[in-house]
């Protein structure tokens, strides 16, 4: 329950904070949520990772569908993703997940009992 709530809250906070701030503010969102809702380091990491994986993956996937893959196809050739729209979405999701996960992990350690 705590886990699901954390994930949802991280998604929500990340989305809102990115309306106003740069992309790296997702780390702040994941950190703050993990400070407020304390979990074990592993669970915290997974919370941040899954939340941002879903948010960045979901958003880019949705944008890509609506765009009918026009841009993702072109850019996957500029970036080294060999024409694969899926790879563009996948890498986007992983990058978001890693940053979110690490930030949440740091937060978990920050509140860990001695």
């Amino acid at each position: 329950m705590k886990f699901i709530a954390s994930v949802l809250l991280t998604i929500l906070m990340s989305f809102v904070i990115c309306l106003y701030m740069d992309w790296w503010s997702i780390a702040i969102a994941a950190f703050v949520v993990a400070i407020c809702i304390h979990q074990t380091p592993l669970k915290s990491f997974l919370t941040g990772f899954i939340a941002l994986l879903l948010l960045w993956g979901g958003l880019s996937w949705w944008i890509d569908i609506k765009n009918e893959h026009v841009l993702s196809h072109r850019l996957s050739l500029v970036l080294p993703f060999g024409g694969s729209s899926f790879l563009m979405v996948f890498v986007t999701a992983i990058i978001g997940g890693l940053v979110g996960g690490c930030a949440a992990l740091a937060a978990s350690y920050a509140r860990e009992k001695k």
Partner: protein
Amino acid sequence: MRIIHFSISLFATIALIILLGTKLVLPAPLAELLSPQHGVWQNAEPATINYSAELSFPRLKGKADVYFDERLVPHVFADNDEDAFFIQGYLHAKFRLWQMEFETHAAAGRLSEILGDKMGTTDVLNKVDRYFRRLGMGYAAEKSLQMMEADTATKMMCDSYTAGVNAYIASLNYSQLPLEYKLLGYKPEAWTNLKTALFIKYMAFDLAGGENDFEFTAAKNILSKIDFEAIVPLRPDSLDPIIPAGTLFDKPGVAVTAPASADSLYFNFRKDNVVLPVEPIKPNKDNGSNNWAVNGKKTRSGYPILCNDPHLGLNLPSLWYEMQIHTPHYNAYGVSFPAAPGIIIGFNDSCAFGVTNAERDVRDYYTIQFKDASRSAYLYNGEWRPTDFRIEHIKIKDKPDFIDTVAYTVFGPVIFDTAYTGRSSAGKSYAVRWKAHDASNEMKMFYQLDRAKNYNDYLEAIKNLHTPGQNCVFAAKNGDIAMWCQGEFPAKWKRQGDFIMPGTDSSYMWQGMIPQAENPHMLNPERGFVSSANQLPTDTSYPYYFGGSFPNYRGWIINKRLSKMADITPQDMMDLQTDNYNVFAEMARPVLLQHMNEAVLNADEKKYWDIFKEWNLRSDTGETGPIVFALLWEGLEKEVWSDEIARIKGGFVPYQSSLLEGVLRDSAFKFVDNINTPQKETLSDDVQAAFKKIVPALKKAEAAGRGSWAAFKDTHITHLTKLPALSRLHLAIGGGTHIINATKEDHGPSWRMVVSLTPETQAYGVYPGGQNGNPGSKYYDSFIDSWTNGKYYPLWVMKQNETADKRVKFKMNFNQ
């Protein structure tokens, strides 16, 4: 323990952000680019996008509505002219901001600022930025800007346009930046009227920057006068000039005489022997165009039809942006230049207008003698004259600035000197005198053309066109058709400026300008049509020297076709514009066939020779004949010229027509002999040798699946960054050099337009691009397939009461 874990994970987070969000480690800030709410995903436009919007800007004087049709062509209905130009600036920026800024950065010599001093193998700083600055692009733009801003109409036009561009830029945040800014990692700066002036100078460079002064001088050093005249003739035999041969011209208003020293100092063939610098950038020699107008006697409707297709480098985003502008004062439709206000090629409710390039030589070089290495004084009319210095401050991405000090003389900027030699210039210094350095106000021409009602208005409008000189075609609903070879051109003595001139006194300077009224022109000629395709404007009866190089075959075939045509419909004109008949091959093939001995051919060679023999002379997509011809002609040129030309350093290329006309006149054309062999080669030897050498290339092309003309020619339209992923490659389109459909590898008809001036205008057009410059939009390249297939769109001149028409897809309202 906890502190350590915390520190490590915090460090990992920050390290990830730096790794993925900057260019310190990776070549691009991957996370910044991929962040769905900021980066490139934001440029992925939904296929179902709705551009409709309510916008308000305090600068607007009234209300305006913009209706976008299904091709995303905006139809602007504004209360007043100022608002129309503001909206045009806003729309250009909304759909084309990056290219506008990139092109004007290029013109200003500022690409190092955004690309760095090197990009791949290109030396951006030395080959591009310093070259444009030393050519005086900024100097020229500043002078023209003064004139543009001194005129109330063009000042209003440019101020409103600039405000519109800036209104759009001000509304942008990072996520809305055009894709290219994100990929290259910089941000747009404010637009200025100077940038519009720079863009006009960029067009002047592209269209009036063509000359061969260094190449011809190098040739002069090696060739005899007779040989030079044979390779670079003043008038090709197959010329059908813009103004028909036999036309009489008045006595010249400006008399010019060659300086007394010309024979010894200028026409000094085989004398001088220096290695000359080569210009780093030359405008594409194929920059040209077709335009023509037929009068009502030749059309089915009884009204004139005007056609134009400017041949330019083909890029994405396109050079052109199509639109309609309607105000209480005028109603113009056509293509505009993102970066400049007004409609450039198009029509209004009364008339239509278009241009082809004049190809005249308006850029000459003078050898300057500096007093010493400081370059602070130069010899001029027997005394040391002080130099003006212009300091060019070039910013370079991630590097310290580069300062270039350019010396200015009475002739113009010293483009090549010891500080910037291109190649070794043996310590010599060359100043460039370029017509584009003179102040002029070309924007006024478009201001007036867009609202021209008749021939006199058109004539008044084009008088503002000084550089680049253009053949301006005109047709009106009242039945008039006209052509003016317009520009402000120096009056030159014969061959003045074909070679580099002495610059130690005033005797070799341009002696005056040809009076505008004496520019070649015609109004309503008896033959019922006017046309131009970059050929020489007149026969030798015209009292001034033209200079420049002029392709003659397109003009020849166009005139031949037009003179035979009757009962013309717009469809006939579209068929003519997209015609792939190769008239150059028609003239050349008989000579080639005559000089082939088929007995010397093996089976493979015979196969290709038969293809060539039976070829229908059309450079259509599926033909193999044009490949054989193109390679054979190239091979023959090599056989004939390479021995003589190899001694000339610096990229000298004889005209294609020189060889053909040389052998048509006399098959014992002296150059067919290879001067490096003891025996005497004949034309037959050369043709057979050339053909045997190209067969392996023909077999290889066929084996690689490039055995058809379109696949062999491989037309492509590349993004301005040259990124293949943002380009359209391998387009199946015919045509080529000397063909009316002048589509080459990356160059060709950049806008095809046919306007029938019936009471209700019927117009058709297409350009190889799309209205939206964003590679993430479906409107990015949406016209390319139609263009490739020779299809046109009907151009909808929307009326104010047609707002409910089903063609209207989106509506933008502009309010105060």
